[in-house]
C-alpha cells in the first residue's frame, strides 16, 4: 500500500490531479457549511450579473440566482451521482464478470451473450430508453448511467478472471479442499481488485461526464435543483449574450474530470506491475550505446570479434550487469557454442552484436564488436541496419512468437531480401520458394502462402532458418533455436543446421543450455556464468576435461540418457543476482574448491594449455604445459 502511494506520488501529474480532486471534493462536502447564498432563490431583478460583481463573485444566471452557490451545490450533486454510478456499475459488473469468468462453460456463455446484447446498443440509446421509461430525473439518470456501464465492467473483469481461474494456484486451492465460493473470495478476488480499481479510476470521469450529459439534455436533475450538466443546459440559450453562465459550470466539469483522469492514469500506472519493471517501454531500433573508458582494439583477423563487451540493464536506480566483459571470436565457417544457465548473459551477448538488446532498459556500456575489423558498436543506425540479416543473421527461440502472425511466410522471406536490395515480385517469390526448399520444407510452392499459425513448430523454425539464409550471411547467430521444440523435431533442426553450415561455410554462434547439443554441433564452446565467460576452448577438450569447477559441476548435474537411475550431482545455492555481483569470482560461494583469494580482485580469463582459457585460480586440471604437448 505504501509502495503504491509512493509510486503515485512520484507521478507529478497524478499528484496534481489528486490535490485538485481533494480540494474539489472537500469544498463539495463543506458546501452546506459555507456562507453561500441559497442556490435556488430567484431574483429576476439582478439577472445575468457578470462575474466579479457586487455580492456575486461569479455573477448570476438567467433567474438571478448566485452562480457561485449553484456551482458549489451542483458540483456536490454531480460528484455524488458520478461516483455512485461508478461504484454501482463496478460492483455489479465485477460480480457478473467474476462469476462468468470463474465458472466458465455454459454459465459464462449465457451471461456473456446477455452482456453482448447490452453492448450491441450505442450506450446512450440504452440510457435514453431507460430514462424514457422511468421518466426524467437525477435518480433515474444515475440508474441509466450505471446500468449502461455494467456490461463494460463485466466484460473487462471476466477477461481478467478467466486468466486467473486458469492459473495453477487456483488448481492448487481446489486440491487444498477449498470450495468455489472460498476460492473466488480468497484466491480470485484479491487478484482482480487492482483491475477493478484501475477500471473504476479510469471511468469515474467518464461517468461524471455521462450523468452531466443526461442532465444537460434535461433528462437528469430537474429544476430548480441543478447539477453541473443542467446548469450548462439552462445556460445554453444565453450562450451568445451571457457566455459566463455556460463557461462557469463547463470549466468546473473540465477541471473535475481532468483531475480524475490524471489521477486515474496515475493509479493505473502504479498498479500495473509491467510499468513498474519498465517493461512497457518501447524498444528503440538499436541498443543504446554509452561507452565509458577506452575502446579495445581489434586483434587478429577474426570474422567476428567481441572484445570486453559490457551490456547492462538500467531499471529505475538498479544496474543489472547482464554482460560483464565478454571476449570471444568467430572465424569463417566455425561453429562456436555459448552455453550457460538462464540469466548468465548468453542471449544478451548474442543480441548485443547487432544492437538488438531491448533498449530501454538495455545499454551497451563498454567494449567493442569487430566485424571484419570494423567496430559495429555505436555504428550509425543505417550501417547497423544494412548489416542485419545481410552479414549477420539471427535465428530465435520460439518460432511462433518470432514470426509475424499476419504476414504470409513468403512475404516475410521476400521482405528479408527486399530490405537489402531491390527484388521484383517474381524473382522474390522464386527466391523464397528456393529458400524453403533449402530448409527441406516439403511442398514449398504451396507452403509459401501459409501463415505461421498454419505450420507446426518444426516447420516454423525451418522458416526462421530460411529467413536467416535469405541474404547469404557470413554469420548466423542462433539463440536457443531448438529449446521450444520437441526432442524429435530438435534432432531434425540440428541436422539441418549442421548440413547447411557445411554446405555454405557459415560461421555459427550457437546459444544453448544443453551440453548434448553443443557436443554434437560446435567446434568450440564458451561457458558463461553471471555475465562472464568462465571457460573457453575446443568442445571435445572441455567436455572431456572441464577445467573450471562450474563447468564440471554443471555437466555433472545434467542427467544424460543411458545413465540409468541415479542421484544427481547438485550445485548448492543460486547464481548471484547480476545487480549485486560479489567481488572476485562470482561462483566462489557455490564452489567446493574456493579459497580466500577467490573472493577478491578480478580473476582474469587466463590461457589454460593450448587453445583453452579459464577464469579460475584453482582449475580442476592443471594446465598442460607446452612441453607435455
Amino acid at each position: 500500500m505504501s509502495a503504491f502511494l509512493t509510486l503515485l506520488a512520484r507521478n507529478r501529474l497524478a499528484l496534481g490531479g489528486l490535490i485538485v480532486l481533494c480540494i474539489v471534493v472537500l469544498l463539495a462536502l463543506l458546501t452546506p457549511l459555507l456562507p453561500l447564498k441559497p442556490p435556488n432563490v430567484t431574483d429576476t431583478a439582478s439577472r445575468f450579473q457578470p462575474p466579479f460583481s457586487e455580492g456575486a463573485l461569479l455573477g448570476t444566471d438567467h433567474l438571478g440566482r448566485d452562480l457561485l452557490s449553484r456551482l458549489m451545490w451542483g458540483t456536490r450533486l454531480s460528484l455524488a451521482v458520478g461516483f455512485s454510478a461508478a461504484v454501482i456499475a463496478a460492483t455489479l459488473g465485477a460480480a457478473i464478470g467474476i462469476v462468468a469468468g470463474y465458472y466458465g462453460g455454459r454459465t459464462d456463455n449465457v451471461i456473456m451473450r446477455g452482456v453482448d446484447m447490452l453492448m450491441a446498443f450505442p450506450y446512450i440509446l440504452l440510457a435514453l430508453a431507460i430514462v424514457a421509461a422511468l421518466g426524467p430525473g437525477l435518480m433515474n439518470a444515475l440508474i441509466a448511467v450505471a446500468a449502461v456501464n455494467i456490461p463494460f465492467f463485466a466484460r473487462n473483469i471476466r477477461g481478467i478472471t478467466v486468466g486467473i481461474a486458469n492459473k495453477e494456484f487456483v488448481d492448487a486451492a481446489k486440491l487444498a479442499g477449498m470450495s468455489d465460493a472460498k476460492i473466488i473470495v480468497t484466491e480470485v478476488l484479491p487478484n482482480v481488485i487492482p483491475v477493478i480499481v484501475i477500471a473504476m479510476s479510469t471511468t469515474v470521469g467518464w461517468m461524471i461526464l455521462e450523468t452531466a450529459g443526461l442532465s444537460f439534455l434535461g433528462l437528469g436533475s430537474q429544476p430548480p435543483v441543478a447539477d453541473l450538466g443542467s446548469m450548462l443546459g439552462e445556460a445554453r440559450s444565453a450562450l451568445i449574450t451571457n457566455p459566463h453562465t455556460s463557461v462557469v459550470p463547463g470549466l468546473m466539469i473540465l477541471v473535475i474530470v481532468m483531475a480524475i483522469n490524471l489521477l486515474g492514469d496515475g493509479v493505473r500506472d502504479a498498479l500495473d506491475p509491467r510499468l513498474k519493471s519498465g517493461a512497457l517501454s518501447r524498444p528503440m531500433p538499436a541498443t543504446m550505446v554509452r561507452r565509458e573508458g577506452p575502446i579495445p582494439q581489434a586483434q587478429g583477423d577474426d570474422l567476428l570479434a567481441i572484445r570486453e563487451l559490457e551490456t547492462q540493464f538500467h531499471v529505475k536506480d538498479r544496474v543489472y550487469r547482464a554482460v560483464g566483459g565478454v571476449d570471444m571470436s568467430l572465424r569463417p565457417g566455425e561453429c562456436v557454442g555459448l552455453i550457460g544457465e538462464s540469466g548468465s548473459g548468453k542471449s544478451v551477448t548474442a543480441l548485443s552484436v547487432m544492437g538488438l538488446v531491448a533498449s530501454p532498459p538495455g545499454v551497451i556500456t563498454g567494449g567493442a564488436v569487430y566485424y571484419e575489423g570494423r567496430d559495429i558498436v555505436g555504428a550509425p543506425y543505417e550501417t547497423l541496419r544494412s548489416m542485419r540479416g545481410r552479414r549477420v543473421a539471427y535465428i530465435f527461440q520460439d518460432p511462433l512468437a518470432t514470426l509475424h502472425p499476419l504476414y504470409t511466410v513468403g512475404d516475410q522471406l521476400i521482405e528479408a531480401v527486399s530490405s537489402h536490395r531491390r527484388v521484383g515480385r517474381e524473382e522474390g517469390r522464386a527466391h523464397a520458394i528456393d529458400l524453403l526448399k533449402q530448409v527441406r520444407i516439403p511442398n514449398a510452392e504451396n507452403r509459401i502462402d501459409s501463415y505461421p499459425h498454419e505450420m507446426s513448430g518444426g516447420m516454423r523454425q525451418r522458416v526462421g532458418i530460411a529467413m536467416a539464409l535469405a541474404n547469404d550471411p557470413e554469420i548466423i547467430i542462433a539463440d536457443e533455436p531448438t529449446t521450444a521444440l520437441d526432442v524429435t523435431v530438435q534432432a531434425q533442426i540440428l541436422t539441418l543446421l549442421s548440413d547447411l553450415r557445411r554446405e555454405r561455410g557459415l560461421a555459427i554462434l550457437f546459444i544453448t543450455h544443453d551440453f548434448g547439443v553443443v557436443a554434437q554441433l560446435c567446434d568450440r564452446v564458451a561457458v558463461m556464468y553471471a555475465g562472464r565467460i568462465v571457460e573457453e576452448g575446443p568442445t571435445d577438450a572441455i567436455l572431456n576435461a572441464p577445467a573450471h569447477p562450474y563447468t564440471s559441476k554443471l555437466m555433472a548435474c545434467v542427467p544424460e540418457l543411458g545413465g540409468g537411475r541415479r542421484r544427481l550431482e547438485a550445485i548448492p545455492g543460486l547464481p548471484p543476482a547480476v545487480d549485486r555481483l560479489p567481488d572476485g569470482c562470482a561462483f566462489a560461494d557455490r564452489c567446493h574448491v574456493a579459497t580466500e583469494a577467490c573472493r577478491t580482485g578480478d580473476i582474469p580469463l587466463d590461457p589454460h594449455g593450448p587453445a583453452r582459457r579459464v577464469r579460475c585460480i584453482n582449475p580442476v586440471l592443471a594446465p598442460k604445459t607446452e612441453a607435455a604437448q
Partner: protein
Amino acid sequence: MTGYILKRLLSAIPVLIGISVIVFLIMAMIPGDPATAILGSYATPENVAALNEDLGLDKPLVQRYFIWLGNMLQGDFGRSFALNRPVLDEVMERFNATLVLAGTAFVLCSVFGIAAGVISAANQYGLADKAITFVVLLGISIPSFFLGMMMILTFAVNLRWFPVSGMWPIFGDRTIWVLIDHLAMPATALAVVATGVVARLSRSAMLEVLRQDFIRTARAKGVHERRVIWGHALRAAMVSIIPVLGIQAGFVLSGAVYIEIVFQWPGVGRMLVDAILRRDILLVQGGVVFVAACYVMFNIIVDVAQSLLDPRIKT
C-alpha cells in the same frame, strides 16, 4: 469469405431479437396503462380504444411483444402522435442527418486517433508523445457539449468562420460546400473525444506490439525502422485497434446526441431527446430499435474487416 459474412449475418439475428426484447421490456416498465402513456395528451377514450386495437395493448406482455415485432418486420414502427407521421419515416429522415455527422466524425477520429497513437508510441516519452498525451487528456476530459458551445462562441460568434448551427441554411442552395461549412464544427467537436480514446488505445496497442519478438525479428533481418513501425507493428496493433473502432462508433453515435442538441443538427439524437421530453413513446421505441439495429450491422462490417486483417480468425 462469403461464408464468414453469411455466418456473421446469421449470428446477428439473435442479437437483433435480443435488442428488441430489451427495448420492449424497458418500455414495458412505464407505469400505468400503456395506451394512455403512449397517447399522452391525445388520450381520449376513443383514441385509447383504437390504439389498444392496433397494438394489442390490452393483451398479455408476450403477445404484445410478438405483435410489435411482427409489425416492425413489416416496416410498421407505429405512428408518432405528436408529429402525426409514421415513426419509420421520421427516423429514417433524421438518421440520414446523423449518419453524415457521425460518419464524418468517425472517419476523423479513426484517422487522427490512430496516427496520433502510432506517432506517440514511436516517440515514447519524446516531445511529440507528451504533446499528444496532453491533447488527448484534454479531449477525453472535456464534455463534448461544452466544447461545442465554446466552439460556437469562438468560431461562429466571434470569428464568424462558420455558421452558428443547423445543417442547411434556411434559404439558399444545398450544395456539398454549404454542408461542409455547417458540418465542420459539429463534426470536429464530436470527433475530439473519440480521437482521444482511439489515440490512447492505439498508443498502448502499439507499445504492446513493439515489445513482441516478431518486431525484433523484423529488425534482425534489417527491415527499415519506418516499415517496422508503420508496417509490422501497426498491422499487428490493428488487430486490437479495430474492435475498439467498433465500440468507438457507438460512442460517436452517442456523442452525436449532445452535439445535435448544441448545434441544432436535425439528427436522430435530437429527435429522441425531444420525443422523451414529449413522452412520444412509440417514436423513442422505434428510434432506439432502428439505430441499434444499424449499429449491429456496422459491427458486422467491423468483424469482417477484422477477419480480412487477421488470418487466424477462421473464415
